[in-house]
């Protein structure tokens, strides 16, 4: 069973706009967000038996809840994110302290190369697929490959609404991925289809419903409710699909996958 890191949404809110989903005129309902997060947490822990460690929320850091962007953890190494926007750069010391306290070696990237953690870096088998242009810079990829000793396949993100790789690409196993073709250019689509044996394209509607932002634990997939076609497709392939309402987080541009960082 994997171990995840999560952060409760005590101070979550739409306080600024740094992606096309955020709109300060559509604030998040904090109480509802708390309930949605708790249901999701329970599904992972009680439902699927995942170990979840918790980061203490910090006032004034509303996006801390989107843990996936903290960095990339591998063994006892932690590649720390370099956020594109100053609003999120303030989160970095919080992550750094947490990982340092637990004996991780903090590995910073060159300061001029942006990188937003697991939001833009997802492994399929031994290969790391890494998104760039919107939030991360391709210049970070070589260093990440060097630290992890793996091949990094860079994918340019072509649509600002799918600003992190985890909004349009989701590994299901060592040989299968979900992806939304419209979020990539021809080169990216070719790289995905030529290097992963099974590729499952997601429809536009399901992609906008954050269908790719799913958490996969073995044969269980947890995702935002409403992606019916995708849920059917996954079930037909033998996955157990758990649909939850995560609407308050979608207002901030994230869903299930954005709320967790894989520690092991």
């Amino acid at each position: 069973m994997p171990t995840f890191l999560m952060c409760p949404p005590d101070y979550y809110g739409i306080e600024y706009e740094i992606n096309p989903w955020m709109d300060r005129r559509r604030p998040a309902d904090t109480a509802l967000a708390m309930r949605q997060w708790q249901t999701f947490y329970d599904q992972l822990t009680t439902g699927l038996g995942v170990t979840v460690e918790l980061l203490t929320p910090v006032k004034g850091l509303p996006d801390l809840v989107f843990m996936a962007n903290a960095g990339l953890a591998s063994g006892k190494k932690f590649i720390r994110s370099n956020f594109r926007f100053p609003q999120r750069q303030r989160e970095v010391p919080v992550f750094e302290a947490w990982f340092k306290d637990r004996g991780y070696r903090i590995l910073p990237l060159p300061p001029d190369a942006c990188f937003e953690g697991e939001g833009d870096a997802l492994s399929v088998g031994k290969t790391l697929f890494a998104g760039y242009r919107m939030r991360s810079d391709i210049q970070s990829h070589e260093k990440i490959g060097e630290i992890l000793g793996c091949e990094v396949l860079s994918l340019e993100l072509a649509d600002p609404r799918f600003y992190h790789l985890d909004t349009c690409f989701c590994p299901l196993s060592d040989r299968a991925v979900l992806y939304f073709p419209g979020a990539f250019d021809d080169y990216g689509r070719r790289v995905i289809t030529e290097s992963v044996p099974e590729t499952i394209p997601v429809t536009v509607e399901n992609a906008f419903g954050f269908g790719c932002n799913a958490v996969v634990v073995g044969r269980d997939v947890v995702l935002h409710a409403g992606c019916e076609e995708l849920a059917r497709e996954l079930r037909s392939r033998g996955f157990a699909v758990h649909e939850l309402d995560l609407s308050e987080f979608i207002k901030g541009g994230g869903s299930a996958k954005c709320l967790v960082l894989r520690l092991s």
Partner: protein
Amino acid sequence: MPSETVELRGHIIDSLTLPKVLDEVMNYGGTFEIIDVTIGHRREDPSHARIRVSAPAQEILDTILGRIRQLGAAPVLEEDAVLVPADKDGAFPENFYCTTNLQTFVRCRGQWLEAERPEMDCGIVVDPDRKRAATIPIHRVKKGDRIVVGHPGVRVTPLERSSERNVFEFMASSVSSEKPKGIVIKEVSAQIRAAKKAGSKVMVVAGPAVVHTGAGTHLERLIEAGWVDVLFAGNALAVHDIEQALYGTSLGVYLEKGIPAKEGHEHHMRAINTIRRAGGIRNAVDQGILRSGIMAACVRKGIEFVLAGSIRDDGPLPEVMTDMVSAQDALRSVLPGVSVCVMIATMLHSIAAGNLLPAAVKLVCVDINPAVVTKLTDRGSFQAVGLVTDVEPFLRELWTNLSG
């Protein structure tokens, strides 16, 4: 053409980042040259590529660089050229950068300066304050001139290859008498027309065989019709042309009848004497002594001509320069703007002109002897197209093509 060297690292092959960068360069109107690529041996090993990106204008280059930077292609940190002041007149500092005839750029205070007047076998002098760089022949070096030393900070642009195949490509492969001459002459005519249309100059380098073979009238007509802007020749071409104009003979042989004239061997000396007595070719034309021929046409049309002599010359005619270094400089002064050069039946003058012309100038070398073309290309004028033929039919057909 402005250009910049960029570097790309990482898993650039499997990510298709390298082909994507190259495609983007072309999509935005640029061209590229891959300087080197190192491919990782194992799957996890990164690869590395260095690419020179060029564009027709700096703004286009900047747009391309901005776009490919997003794809990870960053300009390579480059160094300035090393400048060493010349320590004496007429000599370069040790280890001076020796030029080619290709377009060359010198990096000075972080900026690439295009060397003016590309010419092979020169040095490059730089004025950092005026941001200017230019080739400089060895004899013109003055003490204190800042001369480029070594190769750092110097970049040479290879000749662009046209996407259309033309005669300058298929003929440039080898020299042979067994080539379809009609097509080549047609193409040469088209190049001359294009040059004139573009406002650039056409230069002819001609040897005395032009007159001996009876082709002088064709060249005269080409000059009269305005197809020639610069003539470079030796004493002999002018002498026999004038002999022909004054006596109807070349080397004492009547061109009309093909038979030797009585006392014909004296004609060229008498012609030289007449011109020397008149005070030169220009004066002889002004005085009405010289009325026809190639040289008279040059004077009437006001085209620039440079006559450079040799040790075996009779006379020579007053306009013939006998100081070779001055003759080279005189030739240099008429070269700017030349884009096509037709070299007809003269080896030394063709090589001399080839030495001074930039590689971008289209060269056509016409000679009955294939070795002349080979010698020209062996001496660095690799862009020359060779045509092995008698010069009379060549000029006749060139005139027919251009006058039609």
